[in-house]
């Protein structure tokens, strides 16, 4: 059984002395996420804030030097959140071809068993989900996607595995994902795209940005 950590009040917590996490209350949905994007833009301009990195209905602030009075920042953040309207920017629509199953998506059958659906149906629900880039993060170019059909949600694995290839398309809890570079991952691997998701010599280096709409297309399904 998956229990979402839904908050009733905004929560602000220091991560050490130069990082702070703001977590929005309410549902894990696009409206709240659009408000996070607005909040991110606002706080990025605050003095002393080096960067604001939005993630899933939350945003992490990084500071050049430790803030003297985190309580005051907390008050300012909550006030800024309370007036933050959903960001209305139209994202780009990006088609992403995926090979599902086989060595590309070794967890397809496990996801199907968990969802009590045939694997073909899992692929159909995934390609028909209207997935939006909620955040870029974790590792270079990696995207977190909202809009996953809840019927194919699946908890993260108990122990992360060592090597997910670049372009791995996966499911972690209620979230969709697509990896930008090779490395370990605790998510469930559904398939893989050949699109270059990250390039350090480009500015910005990531293919996708928050708000972009991803349309997964089944190039091939290996059962």
């Amino acid at each position, binding site marked *: 059984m998956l229990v979402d950590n839904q908050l009733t009040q905004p929560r602000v917590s220091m*991560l050490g002395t130069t990082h702070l996490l703001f977590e929005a209350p309410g549902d894990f949905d696009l409206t709240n996420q659009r408000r996070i994007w607005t909040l991110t833009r606002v706080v990025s301009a605050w003095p002393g804030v080096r960067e604001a990195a939005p993630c899933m209905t939350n945003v992490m602030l990084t500071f050049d030097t430790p803030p003297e009075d985190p309580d005051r920042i907390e008050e300012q953040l909550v006030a800024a959140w309370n007036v933050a309207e959903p960001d209305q920017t139209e994202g780009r629509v990006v088609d992403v071809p995926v090979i599902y199953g086989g060595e590309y998506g070794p967890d397809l059958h496990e996801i199907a068993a968990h969802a009590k659906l045939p694997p073909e149906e899992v692929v159909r629900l995934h390609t028909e989900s209207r997935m939006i880039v909620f955040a870029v993060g*974790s590792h*270079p170019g990696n995207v977190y996607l909202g809009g996953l059909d809840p019927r194919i949600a699946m*908890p993260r694995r108990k122990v992360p595995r060592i090597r997910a290839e670049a372009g791995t398309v996966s499911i972690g809890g209620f979230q969709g994902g697509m990896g930008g570079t090779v490395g370990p991952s605790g998510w469930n691997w559904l398939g893989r795209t050949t699109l270059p998701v990250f390039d350090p*010599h480009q500015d910005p280096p990531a293919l996708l940005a928050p708000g972009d709409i991803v349309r997964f297309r089944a190039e091939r399904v290996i059962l």
Partner: protein
Amino acid sequence: MIEVVDIAPLASVQDLGRAPYLRYGVSYSGVMDRLALLAGNVMLGNADDLAGVEMQAFPCRFRFREATDFAVTGAGCTVTLDDAPVLPWWAGRAEAGQVLTIAAPRRGARAYLAVAGGIDVPVILNSRSTQFRGAFGGHEGRWLQAGDVLPVGTTEGTLAAPGFGAQPPDAALPADFAPDDLQPNTTAVRVLTAGEYELFTEESQQRFWATGWKISGQSNRAGFRLLGQPLDFAKRLEMRSHGIVPGIVQVPPSGEPIIQMSDAHTAGGYPKIATVIEPDLWRLAQAPLGSRLRFVPVAYKDALVAVRQAEAWVASLRRLSGQYRSLCATGRRP
């Protein structure tokens, strides 16, 4: 230029880290022991953010193609320049052709080679640090190998013999916050409790503080996996992914904590019980695999005091270094 004559695995070119690219998923990277590289740069009169070589296994041997000022900091290693011993935390001068050998440490885990002018690899996304996950930055985006030749930046002024030493941070910044019952071979680090501390049973919260957590052999620059009796959750939640940084102590469902380090992901979803404060991250970096860690709770204001103590140590080193180098510049023998 410096030739890598011989090198044990897991050495890399690093600076103080890459920012601000967390929002593209690009981690800080950078040295594990920030104070050690910073000290090396300060002793050589470098800008603070120049790159050096981080060594995590030994021995390592480098040949200087030109006369070069250098400093070796971090772990207490046996260091020789050709056959002459070099003290740890010493800044000195190597002549063209001399070979510097850094052997296994008797104390600590990671050693740093800084050179005047810095290791001059290209700056990518604002940093010279190696980003292993993205295979870019540092020297060709990878670990160093024997035969690599590292470019050195230009610099003004030189250090006259014999050079000078610094008091290492483990002497200058003693762990006087450590609990009285600290066992041998155990490093104490200060932490702030984190967002999900309350998710753990009271018994597990107590055990988190009381346990000497063993650093697993599966630990690396990305994270330290800790071994001990697993912690129990009072309540299990599927977290929404959120930003994470070096020092965060996460607890995956297995119940054994993982501390995020320099190559940590920029976001994660495991519950976090605590965060090691920045001025103690170097203590983690110098804790060998197989040794143990104790977590000590600290209030935010006391964490700020620790930040200032570390800054004061760097400032005093900056003064000492400035004095020594101005003596060298006036031609007087220090």
